[in-house]
């Protein structure tokens, strides 16, 4: 229990429970109960959970609704896809092309030389850095430009939507450099390792879970820090925060960048697990869908947003398998119902009905645990705020 002080500062007792339950579900229950096909689907849904998590911070905590999270998801995914594409475009396997050694779609577009901005993506460390840095830097630019000018609320949402539209058109239009509407496809290996094998799928699933849990820890850290409280304060009384000496724009930019970085990680994991990246993730529809994942799960809840992403994606697959013609009705009705009846989503429902019971049980359980071991650190529990 050495780390209880640090852990305790990040996680309340109930957060700990939520974290452990989620980790157990993702690491133990699902891998044991699902075959590899369903499990890698779960892995795919999990990549959306990164975006939803980022939105919970941005939108739930910071009050900044972005309808362009797909941009960052897509950018992260594209960064990795560029690396993988270069790896699978070695001169032997592309010998049939006019210019061997460059990605196939470039050859189709009469490009005879690798464009300069593709060059660095031969390097794996550079790519990993780019996955995080490029989307975050882009978010920073947007954030500074928007928030310093006090663009907020609906206006921000619509502008981010326009940015998503711009980027989609650009990527589709510059198909010689980007693969166009097809995207970057036919990715085979990562550092010589077949990414399509079942084994690779298992590995990616667990890597994905690991990264998601890491992002949750980071979110916990942020939300329980003073910055988290400032965000909550800002959402209610922005002027008060501003006139308490805070530069509100910086805080919004930070949380927007953090959401972008999470989305980018999700995008990169998506590329790995699905094996391609295309502009259809950058557009408006996926961006709004991700907002809806977050809303269904509970925009104010870190864990809720994750469950929201997993459940809605799962429901969509299930519905479209059994009633393909009806799933739009079901989804539409679900969104309306969530907004009208449970504005705080699943997490709100849980807080209203389940939480008290769970906490009581948890108390009881901790008490017996304590009295039976006697050695348990009292500090860890006493540290909790009342």
């Amino acid at each position: 229990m050495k780390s209880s002080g640090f852990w305790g500062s990040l996680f309340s007792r109930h957060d700990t429970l939520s974290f452990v339950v989620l980790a157990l579900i993702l690491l133990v229950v699902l891998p044991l109960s699902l075959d590899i096909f369903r499990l890698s689907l779960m892995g795919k849904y999990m990549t959306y959970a990164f975006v939803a998590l980022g939105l919970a911070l941005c939108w739930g905590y910071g009050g900044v609704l972005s309808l362009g999270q797909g941009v960052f998801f897509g950018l992260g995914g594209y960064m990795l896809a560029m690396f993988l594409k270069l790896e699978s475009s070695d001169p032997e396997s592309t010998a049939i092309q006019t210019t061997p050694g460059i990605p196939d779609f470039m050859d189709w577009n009469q490009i005879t030389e690798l464009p300069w901005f593709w060059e660095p993506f031969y390097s794996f460390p550079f790519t990993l850095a780019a996955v995080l840095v490029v989307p975050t830097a882009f978010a920073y630019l947007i954030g500074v430009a928007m928030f310093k000018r006090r663009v907020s609320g609906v206006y921000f949402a619509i502008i981010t939507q326009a940015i998503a539209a711009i980027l989609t058109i650009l990527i589709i239009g510059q198909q010689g450099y980007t693969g166009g509407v097809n995207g970057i496809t036919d990715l085979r290996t990562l550092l010589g390792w077949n990414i399509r094998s079942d084994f690779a799928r298992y590995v990616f699933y667990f890597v994905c879970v690991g990264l998601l849990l890491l992002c949750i820890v980071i979110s916990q850290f942020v939300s329980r820090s003073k910055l988290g409280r400032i965000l909550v304060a800002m959402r209610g009384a922005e002027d008060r925060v501003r006139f308490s000496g805070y530069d509100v724009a910086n805080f919004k930019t930070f949380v927007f960048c953090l959401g972008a970085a999470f989305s980018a990680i999700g995008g990169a994991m998506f590329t790995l697990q699905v094996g391609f990246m295309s502009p259809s993730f950058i557009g408006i529809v996926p961006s709004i869908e991700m907002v809806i994942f977050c809303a269904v799960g509970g925009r104010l809840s870190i864990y809720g947003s994750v469950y929201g992403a997993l459940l809605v994606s799962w429901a969509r697959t299930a519905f479209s398998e059994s009633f393909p013609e009806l799933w739009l009705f079901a989804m539409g009705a679900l969104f309306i119902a969530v907004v009208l009846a449970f504005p705080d989503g699943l997490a709100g429902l849980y807080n209203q009905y389940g939480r008290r019971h769970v906490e009581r049980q948890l108390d009881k359980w901790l008490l017996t645990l304590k009295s039976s071991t006697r050695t348990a650190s009292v500090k860890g529990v006493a540290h909790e705020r009342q």
Partner: protein
Amino acid sequence: MFSDYSTSELMSIFAMQGFAGLTLFSVFVLMALGLAIIFGQMGVINMAHGEFMILGAYITYLTSNIFSQWLPGLYGSYFFVAMIFAFIAAGLLGMLVEWLIIRHLYHRPLDTLLATWGVSLILQQTYRSVFGAREVGVSMPDWMMGSYPLTDLVEVPINGIFVMCLAIGTTCVIAALMYRSRWGIQVRAVVQNRTMAGAVGINTQKVDRMTFGLGCGIAGIAGSAFTMIGSIGPTSGQLYIVDTFLVVVFGGAASLLGTVASAFTISQAQSTMEFFLSGSMAKVLTLLFVVGVLMIRPQGLFTLKVRR
């Protein structure tokens, strides 16, 4: 790039290009007017706006079928009847949506976005179930097709003129309603202070419902007009939604004049750039221009500076 053409050719091109810009302008105005009322006046982010337009288009399609089957003699005038039906149908559906969903959400504007997105999904699937997944074609009465030749090169499309007249007419009616009628005053009162408006005896619920219905009804008219220039399918509405929102936001949400001015600016920018650049780049640059201006003037082109 102009050296290949004679002066008269150039003149005609500029004339035609100007007209193309005006047509685009009319299209934008029609798209945006309904939303300017719903979003600008009521603050509801109606993501189903495109689907309301498509409802108008489908109603037009149905009316045209009815006329060609039962009243072939009156076919030339079916379009006007169709527009009235489109207005009524979209308006009624709008009022229904308002009653079922929107009225619970006036204090949570961003949530209207999510709920209306749900509405748009449901409407899309409804259209698909009722009208089939394929696009439907609407044939125009003969007098609306073709064009009126001014010179050898310059030809003015008749449906372009029609759309333009429609846009101007609708704008005038809406402006008169909003700024000259008693109802308009009530709407603006409710927008500015819901509680106070209720206290002075305005039936705010009724005003809200009528306003939302009116906005949707105009979307229906727009959709009806778009059967002349665009496609009608279950998902066609999505094509318009981003452009529509940008026009409204760019103009300054609360101002009708702003919406018109912004439609003019964006359409001229786009059609000019389309002539010199490829279509894709023109679109990208137009959007960038709009985003850029919005960064400098976040509240849009036309908003009053008010004391807070």
